[in-house]
């Protein structure tokens, strides 16, 4: 069972590596879009620091959204999805593997880049650990929730636009608590509670998303 999971993880990471440009699309978008903000709203450190956490989180949402389509669509088109459904292991486990591979090549990149981007937005020094910590707890949730949306719309045309419509409202809680965790620490109010809630949402998504995604994928193949 673990071997199947590892085989899938290995294949997805190798594919992500071979499609380098496509894989980095989300991260590049994240950095470029953020670099526009100081140009757009002016380089005043006060304003940037005030909106920094919110802007970084909103862009992280979009960056993850951009990469969701590749989660199941190509497997559906080339028939690999049939093999995954017919593999002698629970589909939920394989879905978890797909999400893990997706997060390692999308969310994790954002976490690693975030201290640099905090610097770009003139956030105070404390943000260099709070922001990555909040993203570390939040981005896997984004991938998992997105996985349900991507699976529901697999095989439909204009899937990516519809996925955004379907998934973005569900991202709002992560956005709210993610931003308020960072802002809490920066304003000296503490954000431990918000980080805990982000962690709770991650656990909830970990429990809920694989079975929901698996069910959606089975329906897609009928």
């Amino acid at each position, binding site marked *: *069972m673990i*071997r*199947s999971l*590892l*085989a*899938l993880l*290995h*294949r997805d990471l*190798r*594919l992500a590596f*071979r*499609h380098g440009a496509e894989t980095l699309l989300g991260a590049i978008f994240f950095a470029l879009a953020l670099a526009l903000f100081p140009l757009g709203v002016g380089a005043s450190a006060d304003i940037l620091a005030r909106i920094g956490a919110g802007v970084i989180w909103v862009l992280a949402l979009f960056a993850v959204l951009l990469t969701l389509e590749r989660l199941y669509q190509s497997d559906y*088109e*080339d*028939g*690999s999805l*049939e*093999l*995954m*459904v*017919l*593999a*002698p*292991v*629970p589909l939920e486990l394989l879905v978890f593997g797909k999400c893990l591979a997706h997060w390692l090549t999308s969310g994790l990149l954002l976490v690693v880049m975030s201290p640099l981007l905090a610097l770009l937005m003139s956030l105070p020094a404390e943000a260099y650990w709070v922001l990555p910590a909040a993203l570390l707890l939040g981005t896997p949730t984004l991938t998992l929730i997105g996985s349900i949306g991507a699976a529901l719309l697999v095989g439909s045309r204009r899937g990516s636009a519809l996925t955004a419509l379907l998934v973005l409202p569900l991202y709002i809680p992560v956005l709210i608590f993610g931003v308020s965790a960072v802002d809490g620490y920066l304003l000296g109010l503490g954000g431990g509670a918000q980080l805990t809630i982000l962690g709770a949402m991650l656990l909830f998504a970990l429990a809920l998303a694989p079975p929901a995604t698996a069910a959606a994928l*089975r329906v897609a*193949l*009928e």
Partner: protein
Amino acid sequence: MFDQLEFALEPGDGLILRGPNGSGKSSLLRLLAGLLRPSAGELRWAGGAFRADDPEHRARLHFVGHLDAGKANLTVRENLAFLAGLLGFAELREAALERFDLVALAELPVRYLSAGQKRRLALARLELAPRPLWLLDEPAVGLDATNRLHLEGLIADHRAAGGLCIVATHGDVSLPDALVLDFGGAAA
């Protein structure tokens, strides 16, 4: 799609599904594989009824559908190694590459393969793990004469070892003494 359909196979039996396009051959195979749910009726294995999406059932079948399931940017060997891993094996058996003459193509990315070569890659799956039930949906599409013989040989070996094989075909694969289920009349 169809009703009043009943058949039973003994170990070593082959069954050919024949009929015009759209008559339900693929649907029956997908139903037996567990990709579709029957709206009525039941499936039995060794006398015991089972649900088609039972994990136990998935562990006893190979399904080769219309799609070849090869990743364009992975080599033939990488594709097969992934499938072997997915089925729970640590190593890829070289026999899987040899049966359909894929050894020379092993290090080539799948995007450079012709349709027939991709088909051979999909069929090589049958050698990856021993499974008693094979469900093949027009397996010979795109295959040349030599590889069609390889396929027929593989099916014959499988049946000789007591395996079951159900093939939907338009007559390009021959299974000696196989039962035939004709969808011709039911097509209307």
